[in-house]
């Protein structure tokens, strides 16, 4: 520090962005940008977004693919929707650990003393998850194409499938963001994600057919929201073939179930998150 500061200590710095929607959008973008910088600088996240999907696609198609047979369709076609679902659900947990991390580092206190829109911190956070999940989706689809995965219902339906996966994951990001602000330790979020989401994604129709599970697990798998998500994607990609489908409403009408479920999640958790954010302080 020079002892004769060259900084302007008088004079006005005037806000140029108006309040209301323009302000919200500008702030949301600033925070998204900030989170993407973080993403760019932490290789572990890139690793997660890029390498893990590649690894899963290769493992399931090449290692298990030869041994697992599903009724009514090709296994590579079958399991790709499972990997899409699993990956985006895990990708949504970054919002939880990142909100907890931000609280721990104290930056949330900085945000809360600024005249920014409080929702912007959460919008920027969940947006960053969305970007990460978009990257993962592209990587998975390319890797899938390499090992023989094809969509059979045409491009619009395929895009609808991608959109639905991303919508669900975006809504789920708000759920984990709330959890992150409540537990306040990133490790807890990561552990909880592992402990809860791993069983949830495996006791589902993601990689195997529930009718081959013990009865109690089959019932669980058929009602599992992850199954509905995977079934919706599988349907829109045209990968179901003649594979038998559980008789629950959620599996019989997976697309509408996921659509409504995602919207309901947003309607509940966006206001909860913003309210929580307004009343939270780092230390």
């Amino acid at each position: 520090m020079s002892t004769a500061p060259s900084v302007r200590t008088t004079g006005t710095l005037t806000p140029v962005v108006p309040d209301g929607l323009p302000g919200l959008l500008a702030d949301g973008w600033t925070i998204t940008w900030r989170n993407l910088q973080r993403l760019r600088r932490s290789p572990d996240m890139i690793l997660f977004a890029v390498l893990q999907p590649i690894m899963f696609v290769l493992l399931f198609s090449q290692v298990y693919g030869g041994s697992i047979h599903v009724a009514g369709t090709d296994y590579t076609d079958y399991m790709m929707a499972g990997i899409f679902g699993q990956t985006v659900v895990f990708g949504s947990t970054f919002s939880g650990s990142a909100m907890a991390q931000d609280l721990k580092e104290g930056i949330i206190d900085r945000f809360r003393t600024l005249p920014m829109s409080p929702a912007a911190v959460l919008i920027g956070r969940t947006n960053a998850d969305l970007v990460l999940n978009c990257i993962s989706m592209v990587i998975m689809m390319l890797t899938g194409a390499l090992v023989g995965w094809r969509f059979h219902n045409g491009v619009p339906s395929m895009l609808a499938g991608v959109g639905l996966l991303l919508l669900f994951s975006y809504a789920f990001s708000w759920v984990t963001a709330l959890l992150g602000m409540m537990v306040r330790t990133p490790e807890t979020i990561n552990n909880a994600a592992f402990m809860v989401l791993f069983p949830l994604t495996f006791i589902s129709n993601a990689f195997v057919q529930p009718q081959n599970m013990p009865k109690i697990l089959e019932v669980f798998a058929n009602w599992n929201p992850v199954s509905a998500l995977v079934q919706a994607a599988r349907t829109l990609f045209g990968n179901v073939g003649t594979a038998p489908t559980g008789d629950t409403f959620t599996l019989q009408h997976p697309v509408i179930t996921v659509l409504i479920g995602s919207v309901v999640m947003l309607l509940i958790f966006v206001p909860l998150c913003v309210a929580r954010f307004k009343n939270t302080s780092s230390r």
Partner: protein
Amino acid sequence: MAIIEARGLVRTYRSGTVRALDGLDLSVPEGTVKGLLGPNGAGKTTTVKVLNTLIRPDAGTATIDGIDVLARPQDVRRIIGASGQYAAVDENLTGLENLEMVGRLYRLGRKQARARAAELIEAFDLVEAGRRPVKGFSGGMRRRIDLACAIVINPRILFLDEPTTGLDPRSRLALWGIITDLVAGGTTVLLTTQYLEEADRLADHISVIDHGRVIAEGTADELKAQVGGHRLVVTVVAESDTAIARQVLTRVGHGPVHEGSSPRELEVPIDGGPQALQTVLSELSAARVELHDAGIRRPTLDDVFLTLTGRPAEDTETDTTEENR
């Protein structure tokens, strides 16, 4: 009305068992610097956090420039800058990016935010470090980024919670310079500090806080006058002589005898000035007590602190250094 006004602030923690603020009143006139002093846990940080909209009090009212902090926090945020006790910066952004982000969130627009960031990075002597992620910064550098974030808009009201804790002497002097310039430009500052010298140098008015209340208020000189006149200090050569010296000082002085920086140094408040010193010297020499040093000094803020709170001012280097990670 003063630009910062707080009345009867109460804030409890752990479902009411800890009363961090217990009816605190505060008033800071525009364009002045108010220093908050107090021992650890006195409620300084809690006071600042209520005023800068971070936490809501359980009872009481507060206004900033006439704006009700509880009813219109967003309007308050437009005119304040704040730096908390612990640096609140984004570890993954560079120094420049942190400042640019804050400028954009003050809605300055990208261009203005960038220019201001560059200017601040220079003023805080972080030009080289400014392009690296904060993660690799030293505690003091991180602190400087945080302080720079607080003055991005040249705020009308600036809250600084222990701003120079963890800064080296050079950076401390530079920050004092920046604060002085800001105040000259009309900024009102509320600062907490553990360095009494800092309060002496910067603050127009000081409020001493303990147990969530203001227990004394005034200019540094007024506070010093409150704790009485001069102090008489003697240092004996042999530790065995301290008992005799203590007896003499008790008789001559007006108040309790305190141990100084070593067990052989004793001090006591006095009324008389030079006479008291003469008396002490002749009595000690009659008792054949050899002295290293003897003299009279004026009261300092340390004496104020000690007298009012019953505790010496914290040695901040040991337990409240800025770095908490």
